[in-house]
Structure formats: C-alpha cells, structure tokens
C-alpha cells in the first residue's frame, strides 16, 4: 500500500553552493566559538571553574549572533544563489577518492543554525541556574558547548563524511551529558545504551557512506546530488535504507528507539536541548538533506514513512502510560519525530513540513522540558507526576509557559504546533490514507497524554512529600522559558504565505501540482476535533478522579505494554544481549580450550612424548646395541627397498 507513493519530482535540486565571500569568517566562527569554548573549559580544568558557565554561555551566544548575521546575509541574496560553501581542507584521500572538510550553508542549514544556536543559547542561560549547585557545572557547560559545536558541524558539513563527524560528535556529547551524573548507575547504563544503540544506526551511516563512495567516488552533497540520477534505483534504494537506519538510531525511531527514554537520566536542560530540540532531529535532517537520493528511491521512502508512522504511534502510546514527567515528554518526542520522519518520507511534499514541524517542535518541546526541569527544581528533583499536583499556584511562570507549550503540541488552533502538524497530516492524507489516519490518531493520543500530564502536574490535588516545598525557579531559568513559550506560540508565523516552503524549495525541491483529496480546511477541522476528543478523554479519566500516589498495578495489558515501552528492552535483552553474553562466554571457553588449547595441547603433547621417549633411553648398553642393530636394519631397508 505504501508503494503507492509517487515520485512527484523527477529532478531534485542540485546542491550548487557558491564561494562564501564575506561570510567565511562568520561561518567559521559559528562553529569555532562553541568548539573553542569546549576546548577551553575541558583543557583549562579547575582553573576555569569559577567562570566556566559564563564562558560557555558567551560562546553559545556568540555563535547565535554569527548565525543571525549569516541568516540576514542569506536573506539578502537571491533565492537561487543562497547556498555558500567554505572548503576548509582535504580531510583524507585515497586513490581517486577525496573527502573534503567543508562547510555548506544553505537555507536548510540556516534554519538549523538558528534553532541550534538560539535554543542552545537559551538552554545555556537556563542551565546557569539549573546547575548552579552542581560542583561540576563547568564541565557541564563544556559538554554543552561541545554538543553545540558538533551539532553545528552536523548541519553545516558539506559532505556525508563531515556530517558523520558531527553525527558522532553529538552522539559523544549526548553520551557525556546523559551520564553527567555518572555516580548514578542508571545514568551510567543509560549513557552507554544511548551510544551503543546509536552505533547500530551508525552501521547504516558507515555502510551508506561506503556505498556512496563506491558508487559515486565522492561524498560531497554537491557532487552526489549532481550524479544521483545516473545511479540505478537499486543502489539508491540501498543507500536510502542505510541512511534510514542511521536516522532511526539518532532520532530514536523504531526499532532503535529504546535509548531515548533512558536518556532522560541526564540533567533536564540536556533533555531539552539534545533529546528534544536538536540532536534527535538529526535523522530528519539527514533524510531531508539527502532528498536527492530519496527522491529517486521511492521504496526507501516507503520504508521511511513506515518507520515514522510506527514510531509516532508507539511514542504516543508510551507517553500515555508513563508517570515520569520526563519520560512522558520523551515518548512525546519520539512520537513527534515520528511525524517528522514520516513527513520527510513523503518526499518533496513533506520535506518542508518536516523541517517546519522540527522547528516548532524544537521550540515547544524545549519549552516543556525546561518547564519540567523547573518543576523538578522546585520539588527536590522528583520526576514522578504522581507526586505532583496543583503546582500552578506554586510556580505560575512555569505553569503559564508550560501551558503555551502544551497548547502548541496538541495543536490548539493558532499555536505553532497546530500549523506544523496540520500540514503533515494533510500531506500524509494526500499521499496515503492509512498513514494519514495514523497521523490523526496520533494527534488524538497526543491530546490525551499531554492533557494527562498537565492535569497531573499543575492541576488535581497536591500529592507532595512532606519535605517538598514547591517554589518558582529563579529568573535565569524563567526568562528562557518565557522566550521559548513565545516562540511556541508564534512559530506558526513561519508558514505565512507559505514562506518556509518557498524558502526551502531551492534545497528540497518544489511541488508544482498538489491536489489534496480532502480540502485542507476539512483536515484541520477533523484534526482539531479528534484532539478535542483526546483532551476530553484525559479530563474524564484523570482530571475527574483522584490520582493515586502509587501507580496502579491492575491495569490493562495495553497499559502494561506501553509502560514497558512495548517490551523493546526486554526483547533486546532476551534476544540479543543475553544470548550474546552467553555466546561470548562460550567464545572465551573456545578461545582457552580450542584455539589456545590446540597450540598449548600440542606443546604438552610434545612434553608427554618427550617423557615417554626418554624412557627408551634406559641406561642398558644392550638395549642401546639393539637400537644400533635396529638402526642398521633400518638403514639397510631404506637403501634396499628404495633401490631393489
């Protein structure tokens, strides 16, 4: 059924950047500032403890300023010559292959740059307050800067290998930050899990790059996009599937989704920045960036859509069942990224909307995560929503900003999420009815779980522990919340006059004819109604009842399934980890016994033979004489048998 996706645009745009000219320095600075920040803070060690957070924040802000300079410069250029490139140096070469390390700044990167540095800066500011009491704050900022630098590398790279550099850089930063509180065994386990599962995705990226190299002899976006139509569809499909695997790992898509919920072990600003707003959307970026491949590989796109659809439902379901506020948000993130992935799988009609949703999601999800952080900050770092309740009075700013995010995510008309999600549902319905229906169901479920979260946290009766005294967070934390809340509300402005679609068209291609089967207005109405049903359901199931402090055990199998994240971890453990460890144990036995044993056994055999044969030397002359006679006979036989 998914195969009915059509190739809408036979010719994807070619990436044809120009020299960077004046913009070379800002372009390099945008990346270099956070990188330098990270280096200074890491190498400076304890000497930089006192002002480390300031250096880190300044680096992020400086980077943001550069991004703005670049963006306005870009807006000043004609639409078809907005892409610029800085070639730094030849990274490596072999035979005919040559991989350049370069920065490509075009419309797509521009938006990402703003999101990363903008939201990134806000989160830096927020973290000054959030991490104020952590004696390793300097290191935290170092890692944050490292993350920003890597993420910028990811979206600025001018070729796939450069992208891989950023890709793994953000993975490393994510690893370091998830496990920032390493003394917690859960955090340590989560960080490793995140990295390892991401590595599974990297298999896709590594092999994808290999296949690209083998096919095109180059990995630069410019050259590959130029040559892509010459390659045969099978190869392109393979590349597409491999890239999808990579995207699944980084963006926590089915079947590599399990790490994201565990990643909530990291400090909340990390969850906001990395595991909501930016890094986890890298998969979407990868697919959109590789549009020249996916456009020519409809089968690969079908797979992308399928993965996105499955994940959006899965994430939503998990969001409904969790009591941990961050995990609900994480499930939600999975689900929302599912939307984006699905949209990007739709091809040219979807790319722009995928990015649009990515941006709005970046705003409102960061907002909500930071809000959740603020809540935790006020409740002794408790994350269990069953221990909250009625916090709206204790933390009015947090509540109000969170509410903006809430309205945005459920798609309340007028809020940013409404516009972006609506467009995706519309596009999905246009391409495939089933996918569209799934998207609509997802929207309803979103309405349910987000309402549940709102109710359990800010409404209903207080269920705090004795010693918890909820209080509002300091200004340094609330100001970023307010800014993000404003963005969550206003993000939809980007769609005015289809601005974002037109803006991105030179990169992702333009849809010329698009006739949705159902009128757009009808889709919006349906979506809003469905969400309303979800919200109402939550109101009746959660808002009208008392929320028990302990999670009830006697729940339906469906809830159990969702609570346990569809038993994906159990599956991985039972099917991969445990047998794997058993096999490794077996291998060790094999190594000691068979591989080493063969050689060592040979050695002892020689030793044994030596012991036996030395007994032949029994000290009796007459037996020596016998051996002498035997020798003579042997010699004679050898001579006579051979010769006569």
């Amino acid at each position, binding site marked *: 059924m998914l195969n009915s996706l059509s190739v809408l645009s036979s010719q994807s745009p070619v990436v044809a950047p120009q020299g960077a000219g004046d913009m070379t320095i800002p372009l390099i600075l945008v990346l270099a500032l956070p990188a330098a920040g990270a280096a200074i803070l890491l190498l400076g060690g304890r000497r930089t403890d006192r002002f480390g957070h300031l250096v880190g924040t300044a680096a992020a802000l400086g980077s943001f300023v550069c991004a703005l300079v670049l963006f306005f410069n870009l807006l000043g250029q004609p639409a078809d010559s907005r892409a610029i490139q800085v070639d730094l140096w030849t990274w490596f070469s072999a035979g005919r292959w040559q991989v350049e390390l370069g920065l490509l700044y075009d419309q797509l990167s521009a938006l990402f740059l703003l999101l990363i540095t903008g939201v990134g800066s806000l989160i830096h500011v927020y973290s000054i307050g959030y991490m104020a009491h952590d004696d390793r704050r300097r290191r935290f900022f170092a890692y944050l800067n490292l993350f920003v630098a890597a993420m910028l590398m990811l979206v600025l790279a001018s070729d796939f290998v450069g992208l891989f550099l950023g890709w793994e850089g953000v993975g490393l930063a994510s690893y370091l930050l998830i496990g920032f509180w390493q003394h917690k065994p859960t955090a340590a386990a989560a960080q490793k899990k995140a990295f390892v599962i991401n590595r599974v995705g990297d298999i896709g990226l590594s092999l994808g790059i290999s296949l690209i190299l083998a096919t095109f002899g180059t990995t630069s976006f410019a050259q590959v996009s130029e040559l892509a139509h010459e390659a045969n569809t099978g190869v392109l499909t393979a590349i597409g599937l491999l890239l999808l695997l990579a995207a699944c790992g980084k963006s926590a898509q089915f079947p590599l989704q399990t790490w994201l919920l565990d990643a909530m072990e990291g400090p909340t600003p990390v969850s906001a920045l990395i595991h909501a707003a930016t890094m986890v959307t890298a998969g979407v970026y990868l697919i959109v960036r590789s549009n020249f491949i996916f456009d020519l590989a409809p089968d690969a796109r079908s797979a992308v859509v399928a993965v996105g659809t499955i994940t959006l439902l899965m994430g939503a379901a998990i969001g409904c069942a969790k009591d941990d506020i961050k995990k609900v948000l994480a499930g939600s993130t999975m689900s929302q990224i599912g939307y984006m992935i699905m949209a990007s799988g739709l091809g040219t009609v979807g790319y722009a909307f995928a990015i649009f949703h990515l941006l709005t999601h970046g705003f409102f999800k960061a907002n909500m995560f930071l809000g959740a952080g603020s809540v935790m900050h006020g409740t002794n770092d408790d994350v269990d929503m069953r221990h909250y309740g009625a916090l709206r009075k204790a933390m009015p700013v947090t509540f109000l900003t969170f509410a903006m995010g809430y309205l945005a995510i459920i798609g309340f008309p007028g809020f940013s999420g409404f516009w972006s999600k609506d467009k995706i549902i519309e596009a999905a319905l246009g391409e495939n009815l089933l996918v569209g229906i799934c998207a609509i169901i997802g929207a309803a479920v979103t309405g349910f779980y987000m309402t549940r979260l709102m109710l359990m946290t800010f409404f209903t009766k207080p269920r705090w522990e004795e010693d918890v005294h909820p209080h509002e967070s300091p200004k340094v934390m609330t100001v970023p919340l307010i800014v993000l809340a404003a963005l969550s509300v206003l993000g939809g402005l980007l769609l005015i006059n289809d601005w974002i679609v037109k803006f991105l068209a030179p990169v992702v291609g333009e849809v010329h004819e698009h006739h949705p089967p159902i009128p757009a207005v009808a889709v919006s109405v349906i979506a809003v109604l469905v969400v309303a049903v979800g919200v109402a359901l939550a109101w009746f199931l959660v808002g009208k009842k008392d929320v028990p402090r302990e999670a009830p055990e006697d729940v339906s199998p469906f809830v159990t399934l969702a609570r346990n994240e569809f038993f994906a971890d159990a599956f991985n453990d039972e099917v991969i980890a445990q047998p794997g460890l058993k096999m490794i144990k077996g291998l060790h036995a094999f190594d000691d016994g068979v591989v080493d044993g063969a050689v060592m056994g040979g050695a002892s055999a020689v030793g044994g*033979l030596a*012991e036996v*044969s030395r007994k032949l030397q029994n000290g009796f002359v007459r037996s020596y*004489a016998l051996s002498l006679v035997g020798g003579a006979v*042997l010699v004679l036989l050898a001579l006579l048998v051979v010769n*006569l």
Partner: protein
Amino acid sequence: MNTIPTPQIDYFQVAPMLIVLGAAVIGVLAEAILPRRQRYLAQVAISFVGLLSALVMAVFVFKRLDPNSLSPKRGQVVAMGSLAIDGPTLFTWALVLIFGLLALMIFAERHLEGGVLAFAGQAAAMPGTEAEREASSRGLEHTEVFPLLLFAVGGMMMFPASTDMLALFVALEVFSLPLYLLCGLARRRRLLSQEAALKYFLLGAFSSAFFVYGISLVYGFAGSMSYAGIAQAVAGSSDSKVLLYGGLGLMVAGLLFKVGAVPFHNWTPDVYQGAPTAVTAFMAAGTKVAAFVALLRLMYVAFGAIHVNWAPMIWIVAILTMVIGSVVAVAQTDVKRLLAYSSVAHAGFILVGLLGIRALGEVGPQDADGVTAVLFYLTTYGFMTLAAFTIVTLVRDANGEATSMKHWAGLGKKSPLLAGVFAFLLLAMAGLPLTSGFTGKWVVFAAAMSAGAWPLVVVAVLISVVALVFYIRIIVVMFFADSEDNGVSVAIPSPLTSTVIMIGTAVTLALGLIPGPLLDLLSRVGVFIR
C-alpha cells in the same frame, strides 16, 4: 701376485697430521722420562706447540692450494691414494686443530679442582677407597690425558682426509680409542665416568664391527678400497648391487654412530653426561666435525653418483634425528645431558645440509651446496658447543660441577655475565639471528632446498620450534627461576678457561654478524677432489 711398492708420501702435505701424532708420541715418552712434577708443564707445552705448529703448517699447506683459482683440481690425493689434501680436508684440519687447542686449554685448567686437573688422580684407584683419597691428597694427576688428546686430534685429522676405506677405518679407531679412555677419567663422579667409558667403548666397538663389515662388502662390490675405485665401480657396474647397498648401509651405520644420529645416538647422552666435561666439549666439537666431513666425503666422492639412491635413507635418519633429539631434550633436567640431546638434534640439521648434494654440473661456483653448508654449520656448532660445555665446568657446588638444572636456578643473579654468555650461546644453538647458529641453519636449509629437498626443510623448521623450547627453558631457569640457597656458585677459572669461552662466544657472534668471508672461502674451497 704383485710387488708391494715403496709408499710415496708427500710429507709436506701431510705434515700437520704428522706433527700432531709426533707430538703425541713425544708426550708418551715425556710421560715415561720426566719426573711427576714436571710433567704437567711439559705435556701442556708439547701439546700446545704441537697443535699450534700443526695449525701453522696447515695454513701453509692451505696457501699452496691456491684457493683463488677456480680450476677444478684444488688439492691432491697423497699417501698412495689414501689421503686427500684438498679444501675440505685442510679446513677441517684447521678446525680440529683449533678445537684441539681450545680443548687443551680446558684440559689444562687446574684452578677449578684446587690445583689439579679435572681428571682422575689415579685411574687405577677404586672410587671411594683409601687409595683414591691418598692419590687425591698427594695431588696426583694423569698427565697422560694430553698425549691421548693429541692422538685423538691426529685421528680426527686423518678421518676426514681419508679417501680409502682402510685409512678411514684406521683413522676411526685412532681417534676413538683415546676418547674411550678419556671418557673414563673423571676426577669426580667416577662411577658415572667409568660407566660412560664402558658404554662408549662397547657400543663403539660394536659399531666399528658393522662399519668394517660394510667396508668389506663394498670392497667386495667395487674391488677397490679407494674412493676413486668405488666411484668408478658405482657409476659403471651393472652387477647386482646388493653388496653395494648392503655395504653402504653398514658403513653409514658406523659413521652415523659416530655423529650421534638417531637411532645410533643412544650413547651420546650417557657418554656426554658421564665423561669429564672437558672431554665432552672436545668430543662434541671434534668428533662431530671429523665424522661428518668423513661421511660427507664418503657419500659425495665414493657414492656421489648414486646420491639419488641413498638420499631417502638420509631423509629418514635426518628426520628421526631432529625429532628425537629435540623432543627428548624437552624433558631433560640435566644441563649436560640436555646439551647432549641438543647435539643429537644438531646432527639432524647437519644431515639436512648433507642432502644439499646435487649432481656435479648443477652446482655453480658460488652456490651454497652441501659441502659448504655442512662445513659452515660444523664450524659454528663446534665453537658454540665448546664454549657452552666449558661454561658447564664453572658452575659448581661442593661436589664439583652442578649440572642439574635446578642448581642453575638464579644463575642470572649470581653471575649475570656468565649466564648472559650462556644464554647467548643457547640462543645461537636455537638459531636466532645475529648468531652463527642462524647463519648455519640458513645455509644448510638453503643447500637442502637448492637440491629440492624442501619438504625436509619444512620439517626441520617445525622441529626447530620444539628445539627452541628446551633452550629457552634453561634461560628461564637461569634468569627467572628463584634460587634457594643451594650452595652453587660460579667458580673463577684461570685465563685458560675464560679464553675458551671468550673465543667460542666471539666466533659465534662474529659468524652471526659477518659470516660472509668464511662462507665465501668455503664456497671456493669446499669442493672435494675426486
């Protein structure tokens, strides 16, 4: 039937041998004439002068060979066709004489036994009796060992030079008989020494009987005792060759006994262990050289034409020798005995080199052929084994030499220099590069491979791995085993012994680093005259 002609002997050519035998006779006379106290000095002097002048003489003779000419006749057959004075002979002579000189030095060592020789004070006195104690307290010595050494050296010179089966037999006995006696003359552990002598003697005599019976059969086939005659008969005759192969087999058995090849090797460990260490050192180096060159000459000159026919037999023996020698050595716990097994294993490797025989036309003037290979290997092995056994004489406890391996534990701490040198020699025996052992191995392998015997080389290579194990075991014991205080110490010898160790080690190193000149020399002169 015919008249017996007056023997024509070119005395200049055989002078080195005659000098040694003459010195030996003088030594016997000196033993009879001189008072006991003067004998030691006189005997050492006679032997030294004899050996040295023989060596000088050998060099003179060698010069006359004109080794630089590439003409086929390098050397000549003298003494009525019974001795060949050619490149290999003279090289062997020089070698045997040098080994003789080195052996003389360790024979003459008196520091280790408190001012007397390491030989029995009075062989006739029974062990553990009053007579023995008295002989000991009076400081009696058997200075007869020096003439015996000279006789053995003389025999060893004649053996490889023989181009006549009768001369070969006589030479064999001339060098064997003194050795039988020397083996039984240890000052300490006399029971073992006597037993060694008995075993060596009985088995030696037994093998001589085979050898001489083989001679008679070959003579029956060829109608001549001389190699030239045999070669002619072998190449020409179309008679039944049962006599030939029977005789060849028995002769080879006798010679293989002398070189200690399996399964004729059983005497080697027992005799090497029981004999006075100085004698063992000399036997290991000298006998091997003399016997191998004799074997080489016999096989190449007399039976060279049928080398394809006898090669399989040597293959079998070579493999057996390498395998048994190396494998059994692994289980040894006595250093001397271990070195004896190592000597067996080395005999196997030399046999591999022996198989480097190729048809005459195939061997280029600069090729590593069997003769070059074997001569080179013998040189390297002789020096290292002499030095190694000499070192054994220095590790002592209250009962004399402490040869049990557990006594060697921690030697690296007690005497790093000695242990280091010994380790170096062991590594050389194992064939590690930068030692002569490696070059030696390489050259025998190259010779065998060039003759197409590559499977044998592969076997040899694999066996070498086993051989490594036991050499390294000694190193481990010396350097890495903890020694309880077992009263073992390293004796400080006189310069005589030190010199031997030094020379042996230096040659081992030198031939590892710059073997080129010697190899070039050997490849030029290493051709038997026929």
